[in-house]
């Protein structure tokens, strides 16, 4: 090492970490330099989040060293990392639902008056300030309960930013965000970089990685693969290094023959959330619901499926009306819903992988009312294989899986019901490129087999690549219906922001 050189604020050397028999990190090294945004990419389960948690002091490494300013340091608890100037945005938002947004941001370090009581006024102002920087309009005094994932993620970002840390680690901060918010975040990130902070950015979206980051580290199976300046790399190289092979086509949408109308939604309204939503989906068709975060897309499909109530409108599946508010009836009619929030809505985290994966089909998997474990296991194994699930064993709790692999379990859980109508809400959130292609291929094949698919996605390329038809929502209403050939980035974004092409022009 050059003695003149300033040591990097944070470096990891040969870090190893195992969970039971799963070796999540096998000698990973990483160096975060001041004034640089460093990207880390890797497949689901490659160990990125584990590394982040090691940096954050959540996990203690089994081996290797953590260097702060070149000095070996031990982070025994998150608070140690925070003291060392490290701020972390975790992959899964961890807010306090009962505290106000402002308190969530400042918990444990609220500004204080001279009497050491909390200075609420200042806390509020500081919150508003950081929200302004991020372009967020959120009442600092509202409780965090009931915030959408996107909003939660924004609060997490605000939390990390206000720490004024020297090292900022972001684990898939944009997975829940749409382009607008993500772009704001990037502006802030660049400002931070320019003021000398070291940033680590993790994402499965390569456009973001390439536009934002200065260097890219690729990891695979918990081991270091490469680290190069962004300028020296292209997407294909990175993907090859990540996955260990070439990934053919990212969006292999096959054209399928459209059959009869399977799903009819008419005048669906939920006061204050969405209004007068009507659409039809035919067998073999993939309809995308596009829009900005909070446009009400998830709410619509949740209402259709019956987990939310609605105030007016009708839903028909194959001509037969679906009773409102009864998910079981929807399932019996052949409807499936892959929800957007896998941890809250999709999975029972404490339960095993196999139980989660078969939770939708306990009836068919039992004989004389008694569940057959072998059938459960067999079914889970089969779907695990189809979706390249990476786990330490199907009897392990789902909570031990990496984020992307958890998403696969949710997919397995619903695809295995062999539905007629499939709702997928952000189906590839947090899924790596390789698997994403597999998921897309799977959806496409299913559509080919006559399934009607409604896909909510905030990823425009996914929408444009997969959909036969695009419905765009804005503030609770459907503002445009675009055919595959009409839909492009521009037309969708216009509708999503509530403008008409003519107005904008």
């Amino acid at each position, binding site marked *: 090492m050059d003695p003149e050189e300033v040591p990097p604020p944070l470096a990891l050397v040969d870090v190893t970490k195992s969970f039971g028999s799963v*070796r999540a990190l*096998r000698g990973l090294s990483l160096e975060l330099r001041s004034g640089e945004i460093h990207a880390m990419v890797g497949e689901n389960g490659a160990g990125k989040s584990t590394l982040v948690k090691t940096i954050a002091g959540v996990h203690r490494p089994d081996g290797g060293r953590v260097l702060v300013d070149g000095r070996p340091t031990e982070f025994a608890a998150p608070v140690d990392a925070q003291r060392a100037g490290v701020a972390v945005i975790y992959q899964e938002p961890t807010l306090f639902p009962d505290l106000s947004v402002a308190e969530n941001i400042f918990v444990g370090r609220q500004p204080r008056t001279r009497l050491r009581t909390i200075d609420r006024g200042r806390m509020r102002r500081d919150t508003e300030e950081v929200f302004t920087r991020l372009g967020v309009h959120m009442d600092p005094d509202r409780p965090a309960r009931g915030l959408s994932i996107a909003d939660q993620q924004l609060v997490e970002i605000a939390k990390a930013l206000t720490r004024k840390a020297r090292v900022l680690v972001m684990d898939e901060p944009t997975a829940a965000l749409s382009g607008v918010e993500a772009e704001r975040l990037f502006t802030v990130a660049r400002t931070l970089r320019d003021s000398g902070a070291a940033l680590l950015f993790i994402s499965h979206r390569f456009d973001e990685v390439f536009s934002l980051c200065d260097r890219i580290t690729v990891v695979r*199976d918990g081991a270091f693969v490469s680290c190069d300046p962004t300028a020296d790399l292209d997407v294909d190289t990175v993907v090859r290094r990540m996955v260990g092979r070439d990934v053919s086509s990212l969006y292999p949408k096959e054209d399928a023959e459209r059959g009869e109308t399977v799903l009819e939604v008419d005048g669906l309204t939920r006061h204050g959330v969405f209004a007068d939503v009507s659409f039809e989906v035919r067998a073999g068709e993939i309809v995308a619901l596009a829009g900005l975060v909070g446009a009400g897309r998830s709410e619509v499909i949740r209402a259709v499926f019956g987990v939310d109530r609605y105030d007016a409108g009708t839903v028909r599946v194959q001509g037969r009306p679906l009773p409102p508010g009864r998910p079981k009836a*929807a399932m019996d009619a052949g409807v499936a819903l892959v929800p957007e929030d896998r941890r809250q809505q999709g*999975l029972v985290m404490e339960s095993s992988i196999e139980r989660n994966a078969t939770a939708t089909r306990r009836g068919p998997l039992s004989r004389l009312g008694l*569940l057959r474990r072998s059938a459960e296991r067999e079914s889970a194994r089969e779907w*695990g294989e189809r979706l390249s699930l990476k*786990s*330490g064993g199907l009897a392990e709790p789902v909570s031990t899986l990496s984020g992307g692999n958890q998403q696969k379990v949710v997919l397995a859980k619903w695809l295995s019901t062999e539905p007629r109508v499939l709702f997928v809400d952000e189906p590839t959130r947090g899924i790596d490129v390789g698997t994403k292609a597999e998921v897309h291929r799977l959806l496409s094949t299913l559509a080919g087999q006559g399934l009607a698919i409604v896909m909510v996605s905030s990823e425009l390329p996914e929408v444009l690549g997969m959909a036969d038809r695009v419905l765009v929502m804005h503030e609770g209403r459907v503002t445009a219906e675009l055919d595959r050939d009409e839909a492009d980035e521009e037309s969708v974004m216009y509708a999503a922001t509530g403008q008409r092409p003519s107005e904008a022009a």
Partner: protein
Amino acid sequence: MAPERTVTAPAPDRAPEGAPDPSGRRPAARIRSLLSARETPVVGALVVTLLGAGLFVDMFATGRNIDFLVLSVAAIALMALPMTLIVITSEIDLSVASTLALSSATLGVLWESGVPIETALWICLAVGAALGAFNGFLVTVCGLPSLAVTIGTMALYRGLAYVLLGDRAVASYPRDWVGGVRAPFLGVEGLPWIAVAILLLSAAFGVLLHATAFGRSLFDIGNNDEAARFTGVSVRWTKFWLFTLSGVVASGAGVFWTLQYGTSRADTAFGLELQVVAAVLLGGVSIFGGVGSILGVMSGVVLLGAIRNALQLFGISSEVLQIVTGLILIASVVTPNLVARTRARRAPAPAPGPVPASAPSPASAPTKGEAP
């Protein structure tokens, strides 16, 4: 300094993953998984207690005493069964003892007014169902927290028992019914028929909880009711029926209790709810829901009863008994946790070379050699 090396060669043969689950199949692993189960300590403690008491406490292992033991825990055992299901869905029913009392009072009033016992019995069960359904209604439809609701109905139902009976006691039950509930099954001493009934009921509850789709959904509800709802489980109806079931069983226990003691009084079984809860928790059911087993709970019920019984035979004073009960409860949760933690601390980091039974997925096989 981060080493700037680049791996060009892709990793060889990435077999399709979706690891088969080796741990679930091998007998050794199965035994290990059995041993690490939450109820193991209580089952073990029960075995030790029964053996110890049988060997060292005079008169413990006599038919008559077993008879006493069974009768003393019968009502608790009955009420613990639905309570287990309720706690697994992360609710609680503290009104069971009051339901028992109200059902007993109802039986008394009916019997006094000349209704034959065979009819009165069914009316009592119906009353119990109504009381349980009322709890269920408040919890599911009104969305009130069950702990608070059932503290309220605990007072309400007990109060209604007072309204029915006042300060009177009904003790004129026919001798053959009163003696009947204590009668041995097929003439075997130490095996009152209620024991057989409880065994059969436990088996039924065990199958329901552990081997049916319904039972699974209870665990799901307890762990994450939102996800359960997204999976088509009707959380509200499920809970509603559980509370109703609890009411029915508690009133059944009330009928049994009444005939066992030959009397109906409004203040009967006062404070029994905490004993039921204690047994359920001792049996390894998590108070936060989502974890538990019928075997554990039944062991918990019998364990508490057996220790009481043995200490009473020893003539040990009741203060000590109370202290021991408390310490057992604490030990039941503290020990497994400490054991698990020391085990985790002592467990060697996954060794290079032959990895134990639950090997990671095949994908990691090629890299096995390069561990630290």
